């Protein structure tokens, strides 16, 4: 074990002050990813700032009819929260599809956003990885890349973001509340994570001195027509090869609003505004869904082992939109696909 200094943050202001003062320090909340990365020597923080005791654990209704979720609400509590289950069932479903009960009990909402890729080459410190060691190269591009990205990749990096929760947050148009030295700001979830470009070591747009304090959900929860479908190599406890979150607002068989985001295919939850525009005003049926899928995957590119994801994603998009339109969302308890 690499020795590190352990400090506790007294409050959000103190947390910000501490992280701003020490560029190599890391926040720790549930630790479900950071501890793992420290064991693999991928992360070697000399200092951990424990934020798990900060009072960011409430789920409150907002004046606009939405929900404000504290950054330290455990994933399990969020998934089972009555207001989330009623108004944002796609969020409950996405969370329940991920990890295991034990991990969900420990993992925090904010931590889920900043978890790091599961690319094999990122995790093996003997391998070249631009995300872990900028400039070292990407061994995954010509390596075992079956789990890697097909959208928004760069020559530097083909890693995916592993979160299920964030895919649901993307279709819900959630906002991330952050606080830094210069005050607080909001970042739309879709703008929170980045594409790798030539700086794959930067996962997201959170500044060095900022802490996530809350996630805010707008009033529109798509409780009637939604689905989260996760496709993976076994029926639980595996990361998504492809996952799809679909949310529809229907009006006499036509799509008034359609939202679509994919997981397991890109460096960030992949929301396609263009595909959503193609859904708008159309009949909620297979042709419309197939057209949307075409748009999402128009620029998809495989790297050999992961070529199959392109066609799989196409089928999964159509199926998930169908589940949403039929109001038969995918169950995460019964693994049978609907």
């Amino acid at each position, binding site marked *: 074990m690499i*020795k590190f200094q352990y400090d506790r943050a007294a409050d959000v202001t103190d947390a910000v002050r501490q992280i701003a003062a020490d560029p190599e320090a890391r926040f720790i909340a549930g630790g479900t990813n950071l501890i793992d990365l420290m064991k693999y020597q991928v992360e070697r923080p000399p200092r951990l700032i424990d934020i798990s005791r900060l009072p960011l654990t409430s789920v409150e209704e907002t004046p606009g009819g939405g929900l404000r979720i504290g950054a330290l609400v455990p994933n399990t509590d969020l998934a089972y929260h009555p207001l989330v289950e009623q108004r944002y069932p796609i969020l409950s479903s996405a969370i329940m599809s991920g990890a295991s009960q034990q991990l969900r009990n420990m993992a925090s909402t904010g931590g889920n956003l900043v978890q790091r890729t599961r690319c094999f*080459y990122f995790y*093996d410190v003997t391998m070249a990885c631009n995300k872990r060691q900028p400039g070292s190269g990407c061994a995954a591009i010509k390596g075992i890349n079956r789990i890697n990205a097909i959208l928004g990749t760069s020559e530097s990096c083909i890693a995916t973001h592993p979160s299920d929760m964030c895919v649901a947050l993307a279709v819900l148009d959630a906002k991330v509340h952050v606080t830094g030295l210069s005050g607080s700001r909001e970042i739309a979830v879709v703008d929170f994570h980045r594409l790798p470009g030539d700086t794959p070591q930067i996962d997201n747009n959170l500044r060095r001195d900022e802490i996530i304090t809350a996630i805010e959900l707008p009033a529109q929860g798509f409780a009637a027509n939604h689905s989260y479908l996760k496709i993976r190599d076994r029926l639980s*406890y595996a990361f998504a090869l492809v996952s799809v979150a679909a949310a529809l607002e229907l009006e006499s068989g036509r799509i008034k609003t359609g939202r679509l985001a994919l997981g397991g295919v890109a460096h960030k939850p992949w929301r396609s505004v263009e595909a959503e525009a193609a859904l708008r005003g159309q009949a909620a049926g297979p042709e419309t869904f197939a057209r949307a899928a075409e748009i999402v995957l128009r620029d998809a590119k495989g790297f050999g082992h992961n070529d199959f994801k392109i066609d*799989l994603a196409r*089928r999964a998009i159509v*199926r998930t939109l169908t589940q949403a339109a039929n109001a038969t969302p995918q169950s995460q308890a019964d*693994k049978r*696909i609907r």
Partner: protein
Amino acid sequence: MSTDVNRRDPLATTVAFGSIETANAQAAVQATAQQQASKSMSSYIGTPTSRVDGRAKVTGQAKYAGELNVAGLVYGSAVGATVAKGRIVRINADDALKVPGVLDVLTHQNRPRMADNDQAYRDDAAPESGAPYRPLYDDRILFNGQPVALVLAEDWETARYAAMLVRVEYKAEDHVTDLHAARGSAFVVEKPEKPRGDAAKAFAAAAVRHEAEYFIPIEHHNPMELFASTVVWSDDGKLTVYDKTQGVQNVQRYLCGVFGLKSDDVTVMSPFMGGGFGSGLRPQYQVVLAVLGAMSLKRPVRLVLNRAQMYGVGYRPATIERLALGARANGELEAITHEAIAVTSQYEDFSRNDTGWSGILYKSPNARYTHKLARLDLPTSGDMRAPGAATGVYALEAAMDELAVALKLDPVELRLRCYSDRDQNEDLPFTSKSLRECYRQGAEAFGWSKRNPEPRSMRDGKELVGWGMATGVWEALQMPASARIVLTANGHTEVATAASDIGTGTYTIMAQVAADRMGVPIDNVTVRLGDSTLPACPIEGGSWIAASVSHAIIGAADEVRGELLRIAKTMPDTPFADALAGDVVLTNGKLARAGDVARSVPIADVMRHGKVEHIERIKDNTFADISKYARNTHSAVFVEVKIDEEIGIIRVTRAVSAVAAGRILNPKTAGNQVVGSVVGGIGMALHEETLIDHAFGRIMNANIAEYHVPVHADIHDIKVIFVDEPDSIINPLGMKGVGEIGIVGVAAAVANAIYHATGKRVRDLPITLDKLQRQL
């Protein structure tokens, strides 16, 4: 034969498992019928019996090799090579040695002395040919992950940290780790199975032919418990080694050889083991490193491998299997050609029998088997549950399914038409072969008669439904073993042998057999095993331990009974004056006339009369010469899959495994073995694969998050049927082992079910959704 032997019990022992739907669900084990009656009516043998060590395990009282606390313990951490082949140029341990708490860093340059000849490193499970790997011996790198240094520190965290600071420079050489790239240079290994007739000619002339190649990737055992050794060094230079191993005496002899120690100087203990699946048959490198550490520091040392390092030991070899089957129009086989190309290391030739199994199952006048090995820059491959059969029978049984399709024959019917009552490889009859009953009872329990033979014909909503089956076969082996029984005057019985219980239930069956033969309640029996100083016992593998040990116990118990009889004959008014050894039994704490148990004397009275506090006997097992018989276990496996074809999701919703394995000693633990094996077979079919980046010769999914085995969500109903199989030839108890038979054929049954559901044949395991999709 007596009527007993010919009797077919309509009520086979059945172990039924409810649906396992959530992570918290407990599999309910219910034995619904009793094992066949035995001539010597016994109360424990054949009765479902809970593990005698279960309480110790769930309460944490059972201490494993890496858990033993010793004063002054030193902790080790191994440093692994990061190239697949080459030489160590330089090792710089300066930074590691500077860390407070680090005691030493051992490498090939400063380690204590080790033997310099191959024979010293050859253990009981080593391949006959080749030079066994010598841990930390010299500068040669034979595989990626090979240990190159051992850091020793006062605590584990320090050792692990300092291990990161050891810098190793290599001169890398070109390597090859891809079987497909190396198949051209594979060489033939001699196997005992001889060819029959002219398979090539008969195949060419056959009315219906099927020929295809199948592939099984490298799989790793992944037992829950990590390889661990705690070595206690005493001032007199003697070593007590607590090791995770399937053979304490094997490790003991190995360590004596490697370190030039006298037999009395090394004791190896392994009282509990958290799973082995064959990975612990050979001594693994952590025990050598831990001993090196202890000898060097003259202190107790513990070394536990981490999960990634568990992928740097043995594995199931990737194997390419080619089958060519030729048949008459009625399904009778005319020709079988089975070729296998399997992985071994550059330094040892490990191989098992992949290709000969058809000769045990199916009649064919012509057969040819070829087994080849490809040398790769990997550790030596090794035994993993049903080695050879899990792979070879997968290919055979998938090929038989393809032949049945070509013949338009029901897969069970094809197998019955080809059924062989003799082992054709050896031209011998079987001690017993109740495979027909396996097919019949398995098919009935599964509902096979309702199967529509047409692929893609059965549906359940959106899902395609597929029903597939396969045959399983394994060996029924028994090895020389010795057991000791100590009977105390109060009726307490201690039974001991140097066996391992790798989680299979050896403690429990030893207690059952001893309790029955000594006529005492099972609670009065203490079992000792996993200690190299106990009577000789082979490594725990090959499904041979139960039969081997049980008959040694019977022998020892009979000797104790003989001694009691000798004493009892001297008692006044003895009822045994004219009794011979076979005329008396031990029952309810008494020595009694076999046919008239009322004529008896309490054991305590006998011993008091003889003025003995305990009677101790050690006995080797003895078996009649059965070399004129083939000895095998058999099974029929039926599987239902449901497939969402568009998305590629495969669910194994039902499995029935009907096993013929002679008399079942403990239907509860035996049923558990078969259920676990079926889960393993499902993993083999759908999930398990060690992924190597061949450019680096390095395993990329060396952890149990990315190396997939089935989770609860993947497992549904598994029903186990033990078919009644009286066997009066194989051994006095008529028993065969069940540790391995349960996995054989399962992967083929799943693959065949997937074909039936979809009409798509995926021959490369595991059958992942991308492979299925490629065929759509």
